[in-house]
């Protein structure tokens, strides 16, 4: 039997070759937890390099596991969204040129090996068309839960390494110890936020399942609701559209649909507060964050609509998914020509479940916001000359003598590459919307309950001031990676 060791420690990682899918998945999970025990800024480049492969291997193993029915959309939606985030991070690494080529993290490589072996084993034994016994559903769900937990633990470890790296960049002494090439602090900050999105998605999935399903306990099968299916379809189609050379009109449609989601989330947040699922304070925090997000999305839309003009043609997949999601939102949140009351919402849907779907869509919305930010920076993006001229005219940048837009293009309102002041404006607006999307996602989760203060220990004004401010990280309640 092969014995594999870590690169710099004599700690045995794998004493015997695991034979079953269950053993392989547990080994992957154990390896991911070991990453958590060894967080060092110097490991960040190798870890961030390998992280996408961990998610990729997890997604492939996940998709190899059979579903009970022919429709896999409800089964694969979570891992597909997470995989999309990892692909976005990979594209970001390529565009930043950091950390560049090099050796991946050996711990992460082992996780990839275990997950890939598990996927191969399942594929060798089950054809996609095989009929699965209904009583096997607990085993299938357990396998998916272990995969997601491994991905979560590895993702958490990558984020912590990146945070250490970011901290080291601010210290002259620690910075000198970092392996070359050294990243810019802005690059690292952006990576942390994106990896954080992936962590939020994985946590959201495990909230309802870990550790019960990992132990093989049978939970009631959950059929996706119309809302959940529409949200999943929207996220995956929006990601694909945003990676397929989107037009300005496509970008605007994604922002509009996200804005519609914010209106829905706001209505649902109110109903969740009335139902006691959020405290009044949390309800207000969520509403405020959503209102601010709406403002930033509206500002961005104002510029995007100038740049596309009325020439709005969209990718077919975006139209279909946006239409379905809009109708799903209407069915729940509209009553005649008004928004439905909280009581009506509670009669129509399971508010707890709908809130979970909204929370996850807000977290995934952060990834969409990043993608819009990236797509808007694409030099190949073409905009209508008249809209570009109007935005450029507001710019404080010194204007070239011939203007930012050529007269002939302006007269015929041609599609042109975005001039520098337009790119600068859009970059600022998309960054702002991304920041507000992060705030909205974080604010949609209730904070964990504080322990009851001992009797007679009334808070003084001073004690109140000493309290920690609430976290703004995407930290939903429930299970973090087990240590």
């Amino acid at each position, binding site marked *: 039997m092969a014995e594999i060791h870590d690169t710099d420690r004599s700690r045995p990682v794998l004493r015997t070759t695991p034979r079953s899918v269950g053993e392989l998945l547990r080994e992957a999970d154990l390896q991911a937890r070991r990453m958590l025990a060894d967080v060092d800024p110097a490991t960040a480049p190798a870890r961030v390099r390998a992280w996408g492969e961990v998610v990729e291997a997890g997604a492939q193993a996940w998709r190899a596991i059979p579903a009970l029915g022919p429709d896999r959309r409800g089964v694969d939606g979570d891992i597909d969204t997470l995989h999309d985030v990892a692909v976005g991070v990979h594209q970001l690494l390529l565009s930043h040129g950091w950390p560049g080529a090099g050796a991946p993290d050996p711990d992460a490589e082992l996780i990839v090996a275990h997950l890939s072996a598990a996927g191969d084993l399942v594929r060798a034994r089950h054809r996609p068309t095989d009929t699965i016994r209904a009583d096997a559903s607990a085993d299938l769900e357990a396998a998916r839960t272990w995969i997601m937990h491994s991905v979560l633990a590895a993702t958490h470890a990558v984020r912590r390494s990146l945070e250490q790296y970011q901290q080291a960049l601010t210290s002259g002494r620690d910075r000198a110890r970092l392996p070359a090439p050294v990243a810019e602090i802005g690059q690292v900050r952006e990576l942390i936020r994106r990896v954080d999105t992936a962590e939020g998605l994985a946590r959201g999935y495990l909230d309802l399942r870990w550790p019960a399903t990992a132990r093989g306990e049978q939970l009631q099968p959950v059929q996706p609701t119309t809302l959940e299916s529409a949200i999943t379809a929207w996220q995956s189609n929006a990601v694909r559209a945003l990676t397929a050379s989107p037009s300005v*009109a496509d970008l*605007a*449609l994604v922002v*509009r*649909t996200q*804005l*519609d989601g*914010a*209106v829905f989330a*706001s*209505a649902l947040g109110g109903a969740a507060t009335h139902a006691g699922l959020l405290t009044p304070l949390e309800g207000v925090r969520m509403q405020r964050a959503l*209102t601010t997000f*709406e*403002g930033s*999305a*509206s500002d961005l*839309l*104002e510029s995007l*609509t100038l740049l596309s*003009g*009325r*020439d*709005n*043609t*969209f990718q077919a997949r975006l*139209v279909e998914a*946006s*239409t379905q999601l*809009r109708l799903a*939102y*209407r069915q729940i949140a*509209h*009553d*005649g*020509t*008004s*928004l439905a009351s909280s009581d009506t919402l509670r009669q129509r849907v399971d508010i707890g479940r709908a809130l979970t779907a909204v929370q996850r869509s807000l977290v995934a919305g952060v990834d969409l916001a990043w993608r819009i930010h990236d797509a808007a920076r694409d030099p190949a993006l073409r905009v*209508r000359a*008249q809209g570009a001229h109007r935005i450029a005219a507001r710019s404080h940048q010194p204007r070239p003598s011939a203007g930012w837009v050529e007269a002939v293009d302006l007269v*015929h*309102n*041609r599609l042109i590459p975005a001039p520098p002041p337009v790119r600068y404006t859009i970059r600022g607006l998309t960054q702002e919307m991304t920041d507000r999307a992060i705030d909205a996602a974080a604010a949609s989760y209730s904070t964990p309950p504080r322990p009851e203060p001992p009797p007679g220990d009334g808070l003084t004004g001073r004690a109140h001031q000493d309290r920690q401010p609430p976290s703004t990280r995407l930290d939903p309640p429930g299970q973090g990676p087990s240590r």
Partner: protein
Amino acid sequence: MRTKGIHEQAVPVWMEVIALLTEAADLGSAQVGRHPQHHSVALGAVLVAGKAVNLLDQEQRARLDQAPLAASAAAMSVPELVVEAERVLRGLSFDLLPPAASEVIIDLGDLVWEATHG
């Protein structure tokens, strides 16, 4: 006999419909804080407008931003703009529109119902 594309006589009206729907969409997002109940119809308006734009050729699409909009449109709400778009479209003869225009007409009718009845 139905035409393959939008008949040249119908293009100005078709463009006006697109302009009204686009106006509804932009107003809906600009006023999302004050009238959140209108945003869904505004999103619906831009989806219908997109289908309508698809029936124009490249040269016509480049002229869309020059299509005039009645001054009264500036005072309209999102539902009113959608209703107005449908009223303008109703004045067109079906003989001037290609078969693919049916989807736009049906979708716009549904949107008007949403805007006025929910």
